[in-house]
């Protein structure tokens, strides 16, 4: 059940058999959500964190004009809100983009595991640090990259992150977002996303059909997005 999550951790550090058993014991109930559901609302008091098993989830903020901004995408193996353990409430929503299955980790269980295994506390601290690094990189995209640059960067990032958990296959992956949702990630309207996608196709960088992305030229796509996976910390070091 938590294989994707363990893969994600093990890219960055060794997790012993005992620690693995503790993580398995930390998660209990599995819940299913439909697409486009707000699973955690900004301000809600939190007593559990959610480990995403299947589907795509987003961290979102609602704007006063009725619009929405996505500040991060989450995939299988990601805790959507481990930071909720320390924060106790969130400054954003957690919303499903597709139907999702999540496993619940009650905070009291997380506390027990982290008290018994200080190394795991550092590993989960690392994972929230990596979330912050992803947010910083998105800030650069929104602040300084062109529409095409932002989009190319995001397609590269998604490929890298899905590769870790075995969901990208020879530079192609399922891509369930609507143009509206992709726009919410990139600070573009859906129409602008459409034009940018057409431009990416014209330049033979990607194909996107039937909700599947196929990267046609990875080096040129990385160059268009100025992408370097450095900020994803895909390296194993003792933490």
């Amino acid at each position, binding site marked *: 059940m938590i294989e994707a999550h363990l893969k994600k951790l093990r890219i960055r550090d060794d997790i012993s058999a005992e620690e693995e058993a503790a993580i398995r014991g930390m998660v209990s109930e599995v819940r299913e959500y439909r697409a486009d559901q707000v699973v955690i609302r900004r301000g809600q008091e939190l007593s559990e964190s959610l480990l995403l098993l299947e589907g795509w989830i987003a961290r979102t903020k609602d704007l006063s004009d009725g619009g929405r901004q996505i500040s991060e995408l989450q995939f299988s193996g990601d805790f959507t809100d481990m930071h909720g353990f320390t924060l106790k409430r969130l400054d954003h929503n957690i919303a499903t983009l597709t139907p999702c299955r999540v496993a619940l980790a009650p905070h009291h269980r997380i506390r027990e595991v982290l008290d018994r295994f200080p190394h795991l506390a550092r590993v989960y601290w690392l994972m929230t640090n990596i979330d912050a690094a992803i947010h910083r990189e998105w800030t650069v995209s929104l602040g300084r990259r062109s529409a095409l640059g932002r989009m190319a960067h995001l397609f590269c990032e998604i490929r890298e992150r899905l590769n870790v958990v075995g969901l990208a296959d020879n530079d192609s992956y399922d891509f369930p977002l*609507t143009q509206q949702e992709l726009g919410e990630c990139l600070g573009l*309207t859906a129409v602008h996303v*459409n*034009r940018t996608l057409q431009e990416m196709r014209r330049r033979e960088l990607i194909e996107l059909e039937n909700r599947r992305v196929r990267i046609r030229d990875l080096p040129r796509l990385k160059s268009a997005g100025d992408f370097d996976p450095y900020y994803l910390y895909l390296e194993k070091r003792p933490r």
Partner: protein
Amino acid sequence: MPWFYLHIRCNDVLIEDDEGAEFPHLAAARIESVRSIRSLVSGDVRDGKLQLDLSIEIRDGDGSQLESVSFDDAITIIPPSP
């Protein structure tokens, strides 16, 4: 909610919207069209160009054109003071 398709018309080239989106009514689709022109034009200016012959054609699910929203509808040009 009804589906609307927002196609981009630029210098006689049509970039089609294959996906469309739900809007409560045509007025909402028109507002989104204005936002979209502004987004497209901002993007262009960032790259050093400005296309004046730019409009969004709003069509329904059958392909019938409901309305066209132009550059002038979305952007007020402020000339230099005399």
